[in-house]
């Protein structure tokens, strides 16, 4: 399942970059992180509780930066395992200077397997879309905090459906 989008932050590129490169800050973007452990500046682990509505799915996720070109490009891989579920996430983003601040073009390829996967795409696709939106909204807040002021997006409390440009496909 591929999801991608673009958004702009009212913050300098260096600020956005610093947030996206800091495992500790990244961790706080994720839903319900229960524990967190940085191995080195490229690899870290997190135990998260992903809400699936009827219940939540505990996963231990290994993150690894697979590529980075400061200050504009970074690629990240995340492998998650949990009871009855496997997740593989490949995500990358491009940062560019924009008049209002920093523009980020991002894409993510999320794959979920195991019994949870058998719940069907009709269920998982919307769930993934929503989780991605929450991460992005949290990212807004993070960047704003780092930049010492709210971003446009966070200010208006962007709801998933109002996201500037956002597409999902299988």
């Amino acid at each position, binding site marked *: 399942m591929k999801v991608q989008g673009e958004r702009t932050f009212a913050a300098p590129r260096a600020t956005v970059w610093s947030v996206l490169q800091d495992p500790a800050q990244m961790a706080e973007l994720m839903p319900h992180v229960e524990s967190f452990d940085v191995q080195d500046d490229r690899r870290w682990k997190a135990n998260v509780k992903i809400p699936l509505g009827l219940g939540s799915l505990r996963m231990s996720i290994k993150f690894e930066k697979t590529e980075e070109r400061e200050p504009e490009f970074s690629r990240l891989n995340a492998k998650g395992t949990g009871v009855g579920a*496997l997740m593989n996430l490949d995500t990358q983003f491009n940062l560019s200077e924009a008049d209002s601040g920093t523009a980020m073009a991002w894409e993510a390829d999320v*794959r979920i*397997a*195991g019994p949870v*996967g*058998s719940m*069907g*795409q009709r269920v998982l696709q919307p769930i993934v879309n929503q989780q991605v939106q929450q991460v992005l909204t949290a990212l807004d807040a993070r960047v704003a905090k780092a930049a010492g002021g709210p971003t446009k997006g966070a200010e208006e409390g962007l709801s998933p459906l109002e996201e500037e440009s956002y597409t999902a496909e299988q």
Partner: protein
Amino acid sequence: MSETTAAPDKPITVEEQEVAPGFIGVNVPRKEDRRLVQGEGVFVDDVKRHGMAYVHFVRSPYAHAAITRIDVSRALELDGVYGTLIGEEVAAETDPFFQIAPPPGGDLKDYALAVGRVRHVGEPVVAVAAATRELARDAADLVEVDYEPLETVLDPEKAADPGTALLHDEVPRNTIWHGNFDYGDYDAALAEADKVVRIKRLHFHRFSSTPLETSGAVVEYNRGTGQWTIHSNNQFPGFAIIMMGPALKVGMDKLRFVSQDIGGGFGNKICTHVQLVAMCLLARKLNRAVNWTEWRTDQHTANSHGNERVFLDVEVPVKADGTLLGFKTRMIDDCGAYTRYEPLGCIIWAQVTPGCYRWRHVRVDFTQVCTNKSPCGPNRGYSRMQHLWFTERIIDIVARELELDPVEIRKRNYIRADEMPYETPNGCVYDSGDYARCLDEALKLVGYESIEEKRRDAESRGKLLGFGIGSTLDSGTNNFGQSTLVNPELQFSGNNEVATVKLDIFGEIVVTLGTTPQGQSHETTAAQVVADILHVSPGDVTVRAGHDSYWNSHAGFSGTYASQFAVTGLGAVKGATDKLAGEIKQIGAAVLGADSTDEVELEGGFVRRKDNPEAALPFMACGAIVNANNAVLPLELREITLNCRYVYVPPHQLPDKERKYGNLTLTYANQIHACVVEVDPETGVYEIVDYGAVDDCGTRINPQIVEGQVQGAAAQSIGAATHETFLYDEDGNLLTPNFYDYHVPHALDMPPLRTASIESPSPFTPLGAKGMGEGGGAGLSAVASALQDALRGSGKPIVSDSSNPYHRVWELLRNPEQSRELVEVENR
């Protein structure tokens, strides 16, 4: 000569007292029913043993991956966990399963659990045994397995491409088997043709009959004798023993197979020997009985699927008058990750090479490849269904392109009744049949005479009406010699089945069968045959429920599969009963002072003198004399046991390996189905509004049971044609792993189903009967045919897939040109 019985308005009901003497051909009530309607049947999960462990398999979440680490320690720490089994132990204690394919396809290594590598989602990796079902599942969740994902191979049309990843390092190009079949003189046929119809690609999809009872076993190990008792629902113990003995390195008598009631099989329960070996190892390791009951999700993700098959570059030479001369195609068959009954599917289709038609010139290039999907195995209509669907698609596409009437082109090309027995281009001998008459019956069932009125009526309601025909040949009683056509080194041929019939000390007639019925009513039909021969009532005959290889009533090919019981099973029953009747007459003649057995006859449970019916000896006395009072018998009669075993062996011959030529089965029952659909042009949603199924399986031992098989088989193919499909995503995850997404027909989905039959007795079988029950595949053709007809006014799309859910029909409506590109006609 054949007789027609139109479909009864109401199904035939049966009352015991109405049963007349002469039970063959009568609807005797089923002996199986009473226990089953009371919930007193014994299915495998109903078997319990003291201290029994429940087993849960840890299965692969990856389609293709290397196993880098397995840690069961946390599972073993859990209270109530008895133990585990992993691939390394299996590899150490067993040999890989015997492979039917010749090298290099046959070089792959297949074990009871994944060894070092997983090749499909759901493949068993670790088995965990615990005190309860729940605990076993809990412990399975504690097993840690690390995987290194590998490139997956999912597209059968690309599997053999150079550079594609390999599933099995020993198998180049993922090619399990390749062979050419060339019958008649195809090039001459092509030269003679007035028109040549070419079809780029036809696709037969993956599905299975998904028996409602999943696979399972309760296995016990006797340390003293080194023998396993395997209570299971495996439907072909003869084959399972052949696979398991060498793997476990034990003789066959160490593997005792027991089953009573089996909740449907349809071929899908033939290949459980893999899990059964894991059970045997666990039972021995833990020294306790172990229960494995497959979950539905596991059955869909990791049990036998029907073979997926693609037909490429199809070429059909046709005469101006619509006479079909032959066909040429390249077939690619996808058998999934392992070969467990394959590559037999690469030859089984050839039993019906020309389908129902007088095609004399056939050229087929056949390749079977492996992919990272669930292993395939026999599925009702095994391998013939795919091929027969292909022949029917050809007929309808040719008819559409050459604007020939679908009924007329069939009648013109059907093999005729007066040509029977008919030898096909590859040497198979169709024993009997009248396909044209079956078609006429089918047309009556769906009211074909008024089809154009119905079409107008549907159009007035905004619906597109379509009419379609499908046919199958249900070839039965395999000649296992056909296996040598895929692997000349194999030492298999012929077929056999066993029955024993005894007259016991109290006059009880007891029958044991070598078969493993899953709803086919063997107890009932066997009793009918015995009753007729011994002149008693079926009620007087006890047929032991189920199968037990310890009863000494099984042979190398014992089991219930491939449409053969009416021939092999009942042939054995008849043979054994004839022997018994002879022995009873010998006793009777001696006791009643007759000079020869010709002077006595059997009647109403007595053997009596023909010249003086008063002089009669009850069967009970015969049983008592032989078993408990034999000193009264003259010496020469003391060898009589009244316990008769008979092995039926069909008159098969060795096929010609070089030419891939010979008769591959003994009987060829015929089914013609017709259906009428109404399509909503706005959505592609369609409904089957009329459905007729005609079956000709020769002499019917019990018409009601035959009709039940016809209805059930039709329902399965209607399900397969509409919503049932095993689809995978790009990572090899099955998208339909349960009955929620794998939609099988329920009572509201089923169309009005009408049946009729004609009887063309087989000249080659003991009772004139033919194996039957697998003919449902006709429905897949009939539905595809009807949909193509319904859409003819919407851009003449070609229906090229056997799976036609609503969205595919909508695509055809939306973009007919795309499907039209598959077809071209060359006018000479």
